[in-house]
Structure formats: C-alpha cells, structure tokens
C-alpha cells in the first residue's frame, strides 16, 4: 500500500522535515495518513510546549545589579593588583638604579696615564719652601684643550657628571678638577697665588691636583738636589 510507502516520510514531516510532492499529495488524499500525521504532530507539540514552559524563567530581581557590580569589580583594581603593580614598579626602579650604579662605578676603559704623558697635569715646579708653583693660565688652557680632545676621541658611553680625565684620582681631587673646569668655563680670572683659595665653602679650593699614582718630577733648579721630591700629592694642595 502506498500508506506504508509514505509512513516514514509523514512521521518525519511531523518532526519538521520537508515532504516530497508525491508524499504531500498522498497525505492530502489519505485520511489514515492524515490521522497519523496529526497524532505525531500532537505528541511533538507537547514536547515543544513542555520544553518552552520549562525554559520560561525570569532572572531574579537583582540579577542586573549583580552583573553591574561584577563589571565594576572588573574595572577596579583589587588591592592584590595594586600591590602587584607596586612590586613590579619597584623591581623596575631597582633594576634601573643598579644598572646606573654599575655604570657609574665602572673603571674608564682608557686606564691611567702618568703625569709626564698627560698635559692635563702641568709640570710641578716646587719652590724652595716646598710649595707648588701655581699653574700658568696657558697650562690650564692646555689641560682644558686636552680634555676636550680626549672626550672627543673617547667613544661616548653616557653623559658623565664629571669631566673625563685620563687619570686615577681621589674623590677630593676629582672635585678640585671640577672646580677648576668650572672656573675655566666661566672665564673668571684664575688666582695666581699658590696659596689655596676658598670658594666660600668649607673646603679650600686647590690650585693643582696631580695624580697620586705618579712620582713627581725632581727639579734641580731650586737647589733641592737630586732625589728631592714631593712624593705626596697632598703637600701641594
């Protein structure tokens, strides 16, 4: 019978499948198959209604407020986040400071030079009293020129806070050199008096600061005889 032939298609059609033209024609003309279709459709409609009814729930009254509260939390940093950010920032700052400190305390690559090689330290001409002669303006200018050329020759690493001098000096000597350079740059007249001058601060302003690592020159004109030397740079200050 044709009903058997179209039964599966009719049931599938009740479930939502499309129906072929000949099956549709049979369904229209066959009362039994129409009853079959209607019963199947009724059962599936009941399932659909059951499901729809079960899913017709409403969110609780405060659902929207709770969602908004959670989104506000998502946009506000928690104390833990703040601590984590602060710790990360501290690590970065400490790292940068350590890098800077390492750089500042590094030995200059050009090493030390002797007084005799460097025109930055003019020759010492001790007076009979053993005191250093004041460097002449030309010598200081020569030293400044050498320093500038040295700086130009040396590949710049970072901008130093003190002038780059090719000598190993103590911090006090370094400060003294800095003061000399400031005087030179300012164009102020340099004191000729070998006596240490003050700059108004607590520390006397030295006129000449030779490197400590170099043996001073022995001068015979002053009648001091061979071997006489001012072996300690501090005596010249």
């Amino acid at each position, binding site marked *: 019978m044709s009903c058997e032939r179209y039964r599966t298609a009719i049931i599938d059609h009740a479930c939502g499948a499309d129906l072929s033209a000949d099956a549709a024609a049979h369904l229209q003309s066959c009362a039994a198959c129409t009853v079959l279709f209607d019963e199947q459709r009724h059962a599936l409609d009941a399932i659909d209604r059951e499901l729809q009814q079960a899913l017709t729930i409403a969110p609780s009254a405060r*659902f929207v407020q709770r969602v908004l509260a959670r*989104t506000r939390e998502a946009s506000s940093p928690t104390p833990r986040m703040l601590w984590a950010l602060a710790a990360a920032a501290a690590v970065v700052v400490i790292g940068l400071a350590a890098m800077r400190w390492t750089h500042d305390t590094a030995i200059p690559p050009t090493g030390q030079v002797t007084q005799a090689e460097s025109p930055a330290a003019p020759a010492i001409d001790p007076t009979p009293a053993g005191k250093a002669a004041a460097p002449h303006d030309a010598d200081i200018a020569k030293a400044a020129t050498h320093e500038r050329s040295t700086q130009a020759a040396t590949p710049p690493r970072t901008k130093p806070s003190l002038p780059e001098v090719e000598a190993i000096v103590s911090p006090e000597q370094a400060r003294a050199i800095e003061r000399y350079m400031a005087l030179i740059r300012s164009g102020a007249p340099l004191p000729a008096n070998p006596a240490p001058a003050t700059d108004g601060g607590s520390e006397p302003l030295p006129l000449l600061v030779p490197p400590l690592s170099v043996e001073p020159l022995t001068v015979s004109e002053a009648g001091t005889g061979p071997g006489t030397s001012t072996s300690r740079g501090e005596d010249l200050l």
Partner: protein
Amino acid sequence: MHESVTRHPGTLVTMDADLEREFEARLQESADLAVRVAYGVLRQQQDAEEIAQEAYVKAYRSFSSLRDRGAFRSWLVRMTWRLAIDRWRADRSRVAREQTWAAAPEMTPESVASANQRAARLWTAIDELPEKLRQTIVLSAIQGYDVREVSALLGLAEGTVKSRLFLARRRLAQRLKCLVNDTGRQ
C-alpha cells in the same frame, strides 16, 4: 566611533560613560535570554544566573567589539552556552544522581504523567542529544521556534537550523516513545 575602552595590565577594563550605558542597555534587554540559555543546560536557577553573570563579565571586557545588537546577542548565547556546558560536564556525576530516571511507563500520545516526571524525562532525553542538536532545540524553545531568530543567534543558515531541529525532535520522540506506530526504527 572612537575606541573608548582602556585596557590595563591583567584584567582591568575601563569604559567611558556612553559605553557603560550602552552595555547596561544590552544587559537589560538580553538578561532573560542569557539566564534561560544557561538554565537550559543546568536546570538550576542559581547556577544559571552565575553562569550568565560570568558571560556578561566577559562580554563587558570585549564590549567594544560587541556593540552591534545582533553581534552581542549571538556572542552572548554562544558564550553562555559554552560556560554552562563546561559547568554541566564538571558536575555531571552529581547531576546524574539528582536526576533519577524512573522506569518509564508505556507512553502514548494520550497518556498523562505527572508534570515533574515528564519534565525530568524530557530533560534527560535532551541531555542525551548531541550537543549541536541539544543547543538548537533549547534555543528554539527559548525563541519560540523562530527559525530565523535561532539561525541569527547561532550564526547558521536557516536550512541548517531546520535540519537540526528535525533530527532533535525525532530523537526526542524516539527516546520518549512518542513516535506514533513506531515500527522499531531507531
């Protein structure tokens, strides 16, 4: 429109006032949909609302790309479903114990069973469907079986939605023994 969402390291997101208002409007409009989608998987209102909240928080973080109404609803449905399924799978053993399957009486289209028993059997049968069919029939029930709306939410062609609906209904009818004159086809 300019990008008005600022992203911070980690999970911080800030929005300007216009975007906040827009998000709140979307939330009001789609709250029912999100909760129902989650409920369609979990069948516990509290759990469903928790899942829906999570989905909205994720939507909040991505809202600059979800401002279109259609895109927002579609994204929300898929995300809510995914979160709900993940939760459901994690709790599956507990859920299986809670949803006892009583021996089903022979059911004909005319038989009357208690509403709770029928509902329990129905949900168990839905849970046994393949995920794509399950999602389609649940969403169709939520949307009143509007094929066009469901296809927009799932990002599928209407023919695909119809096909999945058909397969889901057939399997449910077989499982619930609702096929009229079933000759033993499975």
